[in-house]
């Protein structure tokens, strides 16, 4: 029955060992997907390579369906799994700032670190910028804490907000993902850039 650490009261070092193993799997999957290449990631926003949406939504759906199955068979208590809390303005404004960073830097933090690990110098500079960004946030926190902590809604679930069951929402998400994958395939042909994709 999971979550294992929460329910079995294992010592902290076991949880940290899990963190290490999970991290290794995380980095391995990101690098294998090609997320260690900024030009591949940026393709998502110009249409010539849509790997990002395929990997991202496949992963979210696998974890979503998998966790609901584990819960259904009594193997995982979903009430004990962390659900992100919703601060409306912080989520939207933070997301907009992140999107600008994504297209400037060509990475997000996880993909940047996977690229750094195979020797991409641009990713090392991106990570240095990331450390600077975290420092800047900490130092400017007194001025933005109202924004950061305001409009708090709690750990709201999207299916509850829509008034439908988790299973129905999951089904709708799968249908939406299949439509997006189909559009992504069309986009890759329409905006094809073999001069870029052959070199990444």
């Amino acid at each position, binding site marked *: 029955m999971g979550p294992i650490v929460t329910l079995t009261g294992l010592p902290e070092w076991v*949880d940290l060992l899990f963190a290490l193993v999970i991290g290794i799997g995380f980095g391995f999957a990101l690098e294998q997907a090609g997320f260690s290449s900024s030009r591949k990631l940026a393709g998502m926003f110009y249409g010539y390579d849509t790997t990002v949406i395929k990997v991202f939504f496949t992963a979210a759906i696998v974890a979503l369906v998998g*966790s609901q199955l584990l819960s259904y068979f009594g193997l995982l208590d979903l009430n004990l799994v962390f659900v992100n809390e919703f601060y409306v303005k912080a989520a939207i*404004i933070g997301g907009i700032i992140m999107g600008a960073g994504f297209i400037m830097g060509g990475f997000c933090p996880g993909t940047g670190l996977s690229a750094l690990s*195979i020797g991409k110098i641009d990713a090392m500079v991106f990570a240095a910028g990331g450390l600077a960004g975290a420092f800047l946030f900490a130092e400017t926190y007194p001025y933005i804490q109202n924004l950061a902590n305001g409009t708090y809604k709690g750990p709201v679930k999207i299916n509850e907000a829509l008034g439908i069951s988790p299973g129905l929402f999951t089904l709708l998400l799968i249908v939406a993902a299949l439509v997006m994958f189909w559009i992504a395939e069309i986009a890759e042909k329409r905006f094809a850039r073999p001069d870029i994709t052959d070199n990444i």
Partner: protein
Amino acid sequence: MKNKYMNPYIAGTLLGLVLLMAMFLSGRGLGASGGLKYCVVSIVGAVDRQHTDNSVYYGKYFEDGNKPLKNWLTVELLGLLIGGFISGAISKRLKLQVEKSPDISVTRRLVFAFLGGVFFVYGAQLARGCTSGAALSGMAVLSLAGFVTMMAIFGSAYVFAWFFRKNWI
């Protein structure tokens, strides 16, 4: 002859299983920007402990003699680097290089890479998570915050893509 990347749907399934494992073992999702924050908090604490103790932001990370580096997210971050390196080694992609469009200079690429890092992680601290911790992990637990953050990140990147197109295409 270059080693090809994994099929995106297979790589996505693998990533999803890793996320499921994090949920099942530790009751949490994946994260990347959080680990960076703990590194910064730790460095600032080592350089100027008075500053961190007096700060509304840093103070909480050092309460009760806590060590910010001994944290699930920082250990996971270390694993991320190891996992990426192993994957690069297996697929023969280990190489020191600046990856960029041939139409722009190395300096331009690196300046934008740095700025991108600053923006991304600043935004991630505000939204309490980046593409991994807020968007991907949030979606997997049906968090409304996760879906909203995901749409804000991708929507914004599509809008800004036009302004920065010379860097990429």
